[in-house]
């Protein structure tokens, strides 16, 4: 009896480890059941729901403009693009065209938000791989962006900075100058971080060939955003279904070739440069005029349904809106980028080492607020 028990213990090669929900490497409250053989990962099972707040149900009892603050709290590192998707969906259903100034303002804020979100990604990704210092450099820059947000709408994180039909506020005096000053110094900072990481031998060893997903697999899993583009698929909602005035500005879609963590890193770094390029063009062309279209006091979209998506920093963020003609949505479903990207995690880390798991979680850039909603 005793020896049989001991033998079973000695033969057991698999071990189950629970990563999270309170683990230093799982961003937010993600929990992973990891089955390992020594250091090698046999299987991973993500367990989610620790941050579920019933956002989609809450939408159903809020007015359309009242839904916007709830979207802030989904992907809380990219509130602006969340707002953008929601108001875009309602405007599409109502057939509203927003004034050009509002569209350009939305693009400027959304691209700033993309920078801020990518900065959080880079900071935590590098920290997970053991490089502490970039974290502080990134957060310094992010703080400057949040200062710009704060000046525009009073909030730094949960911006609530768009309304159905346009933008709620005019820019404060001198905002464009401060924004230009920020983007003028920003590319040099990106070059700095690249100097710490891109050619760093350890960084490359930790990321090249880690968490590989082929282009075909990435499409099968429904990946969007940098994880998809890192595999070499040129797909960006801003290009394929342009919204606001993205068809009027010039920018490139960076893509990777190998679909590994390193390529996704390069893609995001290049996206930051492209975002700066977009912001610069928008600031140059920013038209004068009103920031709000003529919309009724009470937003009542006609009966019908619509799907509208934007390119959020993490991937395609879609809103599927069903209206019964009332002042609240009948159903408002969110197509979250992070939730769908996360599903590929087990596929990407199976057979790799525990250390790669944290690298891949970092490279997927997930936010649990959006996964659980």
């Amino acid at each position, binding site marked *: 009896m005793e020896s049989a028990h001991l033998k079973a213990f000695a033969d057991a090669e698999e071990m189950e*480890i629970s990563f999270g929900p309170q683990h230093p490497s799982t961003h937010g409250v993600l929990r992973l059941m990891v089955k390992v053989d020594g250091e090698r990962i046999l299987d991973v099972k993500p367990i989610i729901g620790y941050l579920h707040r019933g956002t989609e149900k809450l939408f159903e009892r809020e007015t359309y403009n009242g839904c916007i603050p709830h979207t802030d709290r989904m992907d809380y590192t990219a509130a602006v693009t969340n707002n953008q998707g929601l108001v875009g969906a309602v405007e599409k259903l109502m057939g509203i065209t927003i004034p050009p100034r509002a569209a350009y303002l939305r693009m400027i804020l959304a691209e700033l938000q993309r920078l801020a979100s990518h900065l959080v990604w880079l900071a935590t990704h590098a*920290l997970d791989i*053991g490089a502490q*210092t970039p974290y502080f450099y990134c957060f310094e820059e992010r703080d400057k962006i949040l200062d710009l947000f704060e000046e525009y709408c009073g909030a730094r994180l949960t911006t609530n900075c768009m309304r159905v039909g346009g933008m709620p506020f005019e820019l404060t005096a001198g905002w464009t100058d401060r924004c230009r000053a920020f983007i003028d110094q920003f590319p040099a900072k990106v070059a700095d971080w690249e100097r*710490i*990481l891109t050619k760093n031998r350890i960084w490359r060893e930790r990321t090249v060939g880690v968490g590989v997903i082929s282009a075909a697999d990435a499409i099968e899993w429904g990946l969007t955003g940098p994880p998809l583009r890192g595999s070499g698929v040129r797909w960006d909602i801003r290009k394929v279904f342009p919204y606001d005035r993205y068809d009027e500005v010039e920018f490139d879609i960076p893509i990777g070739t190998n679909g590994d963590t390193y390529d996704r890193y390069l893609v995001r770094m290049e996206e930051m440069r492209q975002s700066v390029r977009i912001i610069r063009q928008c600031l140059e062309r920013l038209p004068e005029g009103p920031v709000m279209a003529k919309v009724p006091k009470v937003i009542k979209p006609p009966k019908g349904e619509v799907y509208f998506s934007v390119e959020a920093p993490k991937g395609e963020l879609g809103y599927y809106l069903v209206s019964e003609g009332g002042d609240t949505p009948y159903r408002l479903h969110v197509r979250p980028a992070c939730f769908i990207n996360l599903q590929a995690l087990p596929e990407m880390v199976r057979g790799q080492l*525990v250390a790669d798991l944290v690298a891949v979680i970092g490279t997927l850039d997930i936010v649990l607020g959006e996964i659980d909603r």
Partner: protein
Amino acid sequence: MPEPLMTYLVIPLVKIVVILLVLILGAAYLTFFERKILAYIQIRLGPNRVGPKGWLQAIADALKLFVKEDLTPARSEKFVFLLAPVLIIVPALLVFAVIPFGPSDIWRLTDINVALLFVLGVSSVGIYGIILGGWSSNNKYSLMGGLRSAAQLISYEVPMGFAVVTVVVMAGSLSLVRIVEVQRELGVWFFLPGIVALFVYFVCGVAETNRNPFDLPEAESELVGGFHTEYSGMKWAFFFLGEYANMIVISAMATVLFFGGWLPPFPNLLEPLWTSSALAWVPPPFWFLLKVAAFIFLYMWFRGTFPRYRFDQLMRLGWKVLLPVSLANLMVVALGVLMLGERS
């Protein structure tokens, strides 16, 4: 007091107490310096609230650790759990028995003719602390951390040994005092002929102390706290002190073996300067500590710069790069010594 009692008991005891106090205080203050240096690398200010400019931070940390609740997990192996931190700290401190801080007998506790073997042997015991600590905690993260460091320490011990042997070949002695003396007599510090050995030694040293970029056993993002996940209070502080004491050991050994120990810079070229009245009062340990501090700064600089290696990459580096390099270097140096024929 009779003479033997004085020489064999009182004086050594006083020296031991002084060394221990300086060492433990030094290790505690290293945490403060590390936080300051890292902070300046990372555009922060670092601790600056406790005492003038934050200088009492280390004391405050120590006090905090003293009064913290000392938890022992219910299902842990109690005795081994208690033993592990002791096994970490004691070897680290023991090494300083043979490290010469200066030329005369006052500046060292003892000088044994196999000091180098003593250092290698004693410091290897520290591995047990980590393995046992990881195992006895009865925690999966701790176990994995313990296994990682066991593998890491064993594989880096070997190239490190070869790097040290190069110095022995050059010096013809295992006594640390003698090694420094030889460097003075030859007029050249061993880091010049042994530059490869120095490189191998220091890389291994960083790995041995579980410091970035080889800090896998305590990789926070993967294994929470690694082998000391379950430790708290003073037991945890022992692990912490042990880590810093080991950093001092590695740095001190590097100074003695490769950088002429207590000798001032360019001892022969600039001899008139060092013996001049302006500088003759500088005690030799000053130079020793200066060199040690430089190495320790290097440690902290690493931590502010590098990402972390992965387990398999670390093993590959140890066995496939450092080991062959150190072996080849040993052969080259040995041949050189043979041909120059200065010491056989």
